[in-house]
């Protein structure tokens, strides 16, 4: 489990992280969302032991990450600006990583040649940005990490390769229980893969939720009534309501079965649950005046 508690990080007086806290359960795929400059990359760099926190704690399985190689051998990361040696090829970098990660899996490295159509002898410098990203994934997955930290991981990848890469990550999560923390400024990109989401803004985590928890507690229904829409029962919490002609779209807080059972009493001529996007969930679930979530997400 990754635990970040009250993390503070300042750069020359500028506070990039102002007491950020988040918890990534073991085996989860956690999407960290936030606008540019929210502090996502800084938080990930604290998690990979690159930055020394000015305050708070950064722990993986209860152990501080800073200067803890034993912890870091279980963590692989793909930063937005992945580093490789200027003249090195993929094979050189694989050899280099092998010297740091005791579980580096050479057999897997060979197997992944079939997935990533890269020339392992070619200088990485001469590869395109997307190819370099593939190389980074290839090496990171061969490190057999328990924790995979990804910063804007699929930028530059074509849609086919995106799907393949996420497939490999999902496979690791399913088979090895790998915990994944992935940051992005785009919530739509993450909604297909994440089971937990946290929103970071101005150096603090505004909220974090499990998607199942959110989805179980929020329902979006399209309703058509015979005649005017009736007054909905006061015990149902309506988060949002809109109407186009006779079709009413209403987002309720509550379990779907329970809400549908109550609405059945009003005899709607049509009632159907519509899938909620992550954006909708966050916006309407947490659309209170205190949160700038809507601005962050849209």
């Amino acid at each position, binding site marked *: 489990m990754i635990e970040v508690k009250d993390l503070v990080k300042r750069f020359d007086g500028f506070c990039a992280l102002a007491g950020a806290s988040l918890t990534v359960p073991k085996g989860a795929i956690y999407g960290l969302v936030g606008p540019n400059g929210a502090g996502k990359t800084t938080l990930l760099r604290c998690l990979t032991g690159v930055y020394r926190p000015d305050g708070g704690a950064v722990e993986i399985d209860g152990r501080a990450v800073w200067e803890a*190689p034993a912890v870091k051998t279980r963590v692989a990361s793909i930063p937005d600006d992945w580093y490789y040696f200027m003249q090195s090829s993929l094979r050189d970098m694989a050899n280099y990583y092998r010297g740091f990660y005791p579980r580096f899996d050479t057999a897997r490295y060979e197997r992944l040649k079939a997935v990533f159509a890269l020339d392992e002898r070619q200088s990485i410098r001469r590869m395109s940005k997307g190819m370099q990203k593939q190389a980074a994934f290839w090496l990171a997955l061969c490190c057999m990490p328990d924790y995979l930290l990804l910063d804007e991981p699929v930028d530059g990848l074509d849609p086919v390769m995106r799907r393949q890469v996420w497939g490999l990550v999902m496979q690791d999560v399913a088979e090895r229980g790998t915990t994944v923390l992935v940051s992005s400024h785009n919530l739509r990109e993450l909604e297909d893969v994440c089971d937990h989401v946290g929103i970071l803004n101005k150096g603090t985590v505004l909220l974090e939720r499990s998607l199942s928890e959110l989805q179980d507690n929020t329902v979006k229904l399209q309703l058509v009534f015979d005649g005017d829409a009736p007054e909905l029962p006061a015990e149902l919490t309506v988060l949002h309501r809109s109407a186009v002609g006779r079709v009413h779209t209403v987002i309720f807080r509550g379990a779907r079965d329970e809400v549908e059972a109550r609405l059945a009493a009003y005899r709607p001529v049509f009632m159907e649950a519509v899938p909620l996007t992550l954006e909708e969930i966050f916006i309407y679930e947490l659309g209170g005046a205190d949160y700038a979530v809507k601005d962050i997400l849209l």
Partner: protein
Amino acid sequence: MRSKTSFFNPTVFWNDHRRYWPLTAGYTLLWLLLLPLRLLSEYGYERVLPSAQNVRREMLTTAVQGGVVSALIMGVLFAMAMFAYLTSPRATNGLHALPARRETLYLTHYLAGLSCQLAPQLLVVALASAVLGSHGAFDARVMGLALLALALPTLFFYSFGVLCMIFTGQILAAPVFYGVLNVVAVGVEVLVRAFAGNFLYGWAETQTPALLALSPVVQMFYALRVAVRGGTLLVEGLGWLWIYAAAGLALAALGLLAYRGRHSEAAGNTVAIGWAKPVFKYGVAFCAALALGQLVYFLFFGRYRANGAYSLVGSLACMALAGLLGYFIAEMLLQKSFRVLRSGWRGALAVMASLVALGCAMTFDLTGYEHYIPHADDVARVSIDLSIYSGSAHCSVTLDDPDAILLADAAHRAVINDKQRQQANGDYVPDDDGIVGGYFVVTYQLKNGGVVRRRYNPLTLYENELGDPSSPAAALTALYNDPSVMLYRALGRWGYSAENDPRTLPDLRFTGGYYSRTLWSGTEYRGEQQRDLSPAEAQTIFDAAVRDAEAGRVVGSLFGVSDGSSLTVALYANYLGTARSADPVPAEDESGRVQIGFDLLIEPSMTETLAAMREMGLTIDS
């Protein structure tokens, strides 16, 4: 799970070697050319085979001199290569994200860079040994010395370069810091001396030996020399190399501490360590004030105090402006922005205020520097250096006689009391009869080990004041003609101090001498008497001069005019022992005796010496 992390990571080590092999290869090639190949060519092309000792000496000299130069250059290059990743945020983040402690990364990169230099050194010395061995000239001791001469400076300069790399996040700033810091102690001392000399009457421009040691490259060039002692090849100053090697290890340890405290996000910063930033900022400001400020003042106002055009306000203004310029440039480098006026004005004010305060404190002698004369009871010895430009009067001696010390005190006090008039003269000496210009340097060595030194240059003396004992002319003449000064004055440069009294030299033997005298009849040239002196004649003249001095017959005048008629006799001698720094052009021969030569100055009052010379048939009168 097994952790591969320790204080050394072989992957990093060999990766460094693989990545920077061209640098290592270039370094190896350089030394292959300088040592084994050069030795081979000597044996191959010399018509007469050089002696084994000469070849060994040449090899050792190359190793000693080349070792320092190559270590100075390659040390920083290898440091830049090994720690280049610290200057790129992407590379820093990439390497620091790997499962390795900072200590592991630092030590492994450090050792990789060191081994890239030591391995070629070992190779070239081994090959040079093979070349010498093939000609029967192999000497394991000399080979060991050559290896030390290469390796010890490398250890120091490379560690120093590494420390510079840790302290900066800009790859090009590292060689600048490295170059500046290598000579900063001597450089700043020169600037401070010039600064103080601009404001303080009597400021003595002396070099502090301790500061020389803080400028390693300068110290090594001064100290290192290959010599033959009793037929054995030696490296003089090798102790300094050991000291610097130890300092190199200390710098490496300091580098480790700095690396541990260095933030990854400092990559790209001019100064990467937090506490070093104000040191850099104010250091640049003060150095700019001292160097640029004084240069500007020199260009605008001429030659400082000495030409009489001295301007306190002008000098301070130039230094304050240059200090401000340096301060804001440093601030721009630190902030990576041109907009530093708002954030830096407080510091700028502090720089200006301290420069003005320092200048005023010196000008108005708030520290009492100008008027300070040590109490005679506290003085162990006093060194006098007095010279008159237009005449032949010169004396440079060290005295420990209490009466002589009192005379030196009195002369010094007379010069201090004459400050106003001396400063008004500037470097202009009135062109009148009975007025001479010269310089006076007095150095007190105190009983507590302290040293007080003052220098008055130029110093104007007035002959018509000889009757006034408190005048500089009278007080300095009294000192000049003190019996304890006479012998050393007669012996000229050889008699700098009682310590160097030739009579105390072990087994002093005169080997001869030379006398030359131009003869005139009125204004008509009558020829020249030139004669070599036998060892006995040289000894006789020297003994007579000593007796003249002891009897107080070496009387001179500060106001005498040099007309080319003064008498000198060159005497040659040797003694058993080690050459001293005071010996003019010392040379040690194969027998271990130090050869010396000096000119004995003969005043007209040295009657016994003159009589002895006449007896030898030497023409005294021109």
